């Protein structure tokens, strides 16, 4: 790829590997891809390896999808969170969303009018008495007036580092319980994103995170809605599939180092699911997927005379210098592959078989069958039409076996082993922007920016407000130099009515949310 062409750089940071894809955006060609073991390289180091190094400078953005946020959520003890809640009148508050909760006075009504003020100093005093790892700040109707949350944020940020505080008005949707669940998760997961920012070093200025809906959000915005990066990797594999295969219907089987994900797609789109946290719905959309911990780095063992996968990552496979037998080694043995140093795979499988008095070939096939059977169970559960689509490094070996058992066809797409990184590299800027227009007060409140604009206009039409929301979206994109890859704009919510006071119409109330739809903007041609 000649220097000077438009370069799109996508990364997928998993538990085991860092996948890198360089796309020539003008030609739609994957000009380079690579896999780097996380046991050896940091993200920044992976970017310093030729030929990536020579393009990373000229790449406008570094687009990163990751399973680390989801894995942290699933596997790690997350930091505790103090939920600061200004619920106003209503049903009992969701205090069980966090380890600790401070209920404060303060109420914003459905019109975004502050009817009861907040004592931010009281919040600060209450926090000083606690051991605080992260803070989530939520007030009812904050998306119609963020001022209460902003006041609390200012007070809290004098005590707690900003990178451990999350506010709910960044999410433009009504339902404060779901916003609260989302905000608590963001407070807990922000540090994962910050870790990657630190790991990226100087390149983090160009960093975009891929969200669970498959769209890309720049670091500046993503950090405040970190929880939206849950499902990032699964979403990017769908976008990658879209980029390579078009609007196909099928089931993506992504065989990673730790997990095997089964992701149904219909006409190139994932089936959307809402993530739940502590028995509450969140505002986090993730692709519907099923997952098992049975990826290439998972250990293997013998149970009752049969080879079995151990649902836990044990480190690098023996084929790549590891000390324990893994699924990758069993595959190497059973299918007589030459992944990495296959002699090491043979040796370690034979050692394990010898300990249990088994034929190593039987042991290896038992493990492969175990993995295949488990995935077949997931495929049956998602029950989608179409072929199986093999992705991930081991996908092309395992998926044909799964397809055979399921009695369906399969596809091994080009670049199947780095489809997540291709998805990250080819996806669009995606943002949901809300505008709450209160004509009586002649003003508009925008989310996620929290910007308030005085317009003085009491009556507006639908197109005017939608245009305001679109303008806001493009203005954010422009400010972040992301205007060139905004996806198609769609209106996801619109309602309006007239306020009548004293028998006379006083102005209009409009709530409108638009979003730039995530999709592959570059079609890979070969």
């Amino acid at each position, binding site marked *: 790829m000649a220097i000077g062409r438009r370069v799109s750089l996508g990364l997928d940071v998993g538990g085991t590997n860092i996948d890198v894809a360089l796309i020539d955006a003008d030609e739609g060609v994957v000009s380079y891809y690579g896999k780097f073991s996380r046991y050896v390289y940091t993200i920044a180091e992976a970017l310093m390896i030729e030929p990536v190094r020579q393009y990373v400078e000229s790449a406008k953005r570094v687009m990163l999808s990751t399973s680390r946020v989801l894995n942290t959520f699933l596997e790690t003890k997350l930091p505790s969170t103090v939920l600061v809640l200004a619920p106003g009148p209503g049903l009992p508050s969701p205090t069980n969303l966090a380890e600790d909760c401070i209920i404060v006075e303060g109420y914003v009504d459905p019109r975004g009018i502050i*009817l009861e003020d907040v004592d931010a100093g009281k919040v600060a005093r209450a926090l000083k008495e606690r051991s605080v790892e992260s803070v989530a700040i939520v007030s009812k109707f904050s998306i119609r007036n963020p001022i209460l949350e902003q006041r609390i944020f200012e007070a809290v940020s004098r005590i707690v580092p900003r990178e451990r505080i999350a506010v709910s008005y960044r999410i433009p949707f009504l*339902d404060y319980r779901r916003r609260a669940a989302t905000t608590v998760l963001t407070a807990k997961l922000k540090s994962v994103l910050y870790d990657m920012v630190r790991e990226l070093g100087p390149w983090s200025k160009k960093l975009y995170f891929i969200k669970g809906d498959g769209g890309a959000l720049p670091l500046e915005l993503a950090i405040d809605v970190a929880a939206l990066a849950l499902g990032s990797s699964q979403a990017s594999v769908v976008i990658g599939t879209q980029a390579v295969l078009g609007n196909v219907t099928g089931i993506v089987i992504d065989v990673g180092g730790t997990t095997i994900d089964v992701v149904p797609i219909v006409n190139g789109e994932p089936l959307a699911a809402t993530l739940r946290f502590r028995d509450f719905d969140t505002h986090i959309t993730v692709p519907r997927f099923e997952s098992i911990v049975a990826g290439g780095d998972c250990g293997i063992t013998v149970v009752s005379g049969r080879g079995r996968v151990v649902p836990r990552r044990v480190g690098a496979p023996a084929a790549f210098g590891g000390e324990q037998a893994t699924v990758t080694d069993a595959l190497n043995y059973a299918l007589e592959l030459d992944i990495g140093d296959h002699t090491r795979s043979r040796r370690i499988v034979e050692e394990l078989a010898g300990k249990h008095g088994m034929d190593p070939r039987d042991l290896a096939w038992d493990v492969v069958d175990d993995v295949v059977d488990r995935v077949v169970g997931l495929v049956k559960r998602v029950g989608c039409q179409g072929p199986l689509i093999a992705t991930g490094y081991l996908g092309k070996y395992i998926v044909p076996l799964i397809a055979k058992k399921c009695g369906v066809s399969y596809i091994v797409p080009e670049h199947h082993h780095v489809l997540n990184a291709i998805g990250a590299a080819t996806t669009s800027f995606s943002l949901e922007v809300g505008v709450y227009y209160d004509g009586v007060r002649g003003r508009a409140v925008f989310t996620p920016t929290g910007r308030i604009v005085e317009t003085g206009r009491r009556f507006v039409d639908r197109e005017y407000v939608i245009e305001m929301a679109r303008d806001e979206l493009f203005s954010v994109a422009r400010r972040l130099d992301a205007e060139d890859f905004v996806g198609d704009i769609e209106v996801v919510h619109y309602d309006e009515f*007239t306020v009548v006071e004293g028998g006379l119409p006083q102005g209009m109330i409009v709530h409108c949310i638009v979003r730039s739809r995530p999709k592959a903007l570059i079609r890979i041609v070969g």
Partner: protein
Amino acid sequence: MAVKIALVYDEKYLEHEQDPTHPERKERLAYTMAYLVEEGVLSMGIVDVVKPRPATREEVLRVHTKEYLEYLEYLNRVGGVIDLDTPAPKGFLSYALLAAGGAIVAGELVVKGMYPRAFAMIRPPGHHAKPGEGAGFCYLNNIAILTEHLRAKYGIKKVAILDWDAHFGDGTYDIYEEDPHVLYISIHQDPYTLYPGRGFIHEIGRGDAMGTKVCIPVPPGTGDEEYAYVFDELVAPIVEMFKPEIILVSAGQDCHFSDPITWLGVTAQGYAKLMSKTVELAKKVCGGKVVAVLEGGYGVEAGLPYTNLAVIATLAEANTSTIREPRIVVERYWWKRRKTMPQVIKTVEKIKDLLSKCIGVFRKM
């Protein structure tokens, strides 16, 4: 322990507009829905939103006359006015049918056992509509159409309708004035002080139905304590004696102290208490089956979001102890509340006296 109830609602209910400044306008539901969504009621697992369907001609004609329906169909085509309060803009009838159908859907869900209780959050309201006449913002009598549907299709014989709208439900009363199988109890603001100027204590039904219609007028300013007293002293014992198979509620939210067109003093907590008593009563007499159908309520910002939340959450037996109005609403409107207990006690005693003379009617059923 909360249960899941059905909330029958459709955004089409926001399309009906008599005129933009009419008290019965779409903001009534728009604010409430925004509040319910923000409150998380729809994601908490206590409510399923169920879409209504339009009522059929056959269902409407069980209550209204053919001539009246034809008149409505004519107005629907050309537009007009039914009375000064009740404009009939072109196309209004589809919304009225959808409201009546909403009540039917709510009732069916409960009678079929799919939900223990349901709230039909519908408009336009219905309880002033008579067999051959619309009035007071109402075109079709939703609760009567529901009642007749339950009787015709599900073999239900005895229905209790509890109407706590601030205005007397003269339409429902007239439809059932001579029907001994429908118990109709209305608690409403003193008719000398409020539309429709009827609902005096002597309106107790006719013929065999005498004593199955109970009108309980309360003075302006009446609030939670007095309503609870009326419920305990009159509503509960009468319903227990009547033994209905289902309790329907004409749930008017205009008794709230912030309502701009009435003069009562009930709070959101008061509504929760009323509905809670209704649910407990229903558990005693009819397996807990309650269907509430929205009637009036015009305190768009200060009242409806809180009262509707209280009613819905109570139907679902959720914890409502923290529901309240914003303090500024209390400061602005609380002056309407008056202590009316002595007058209410007198009224209750008079009604007891009147009913005791036709207690035999209850025994017959």
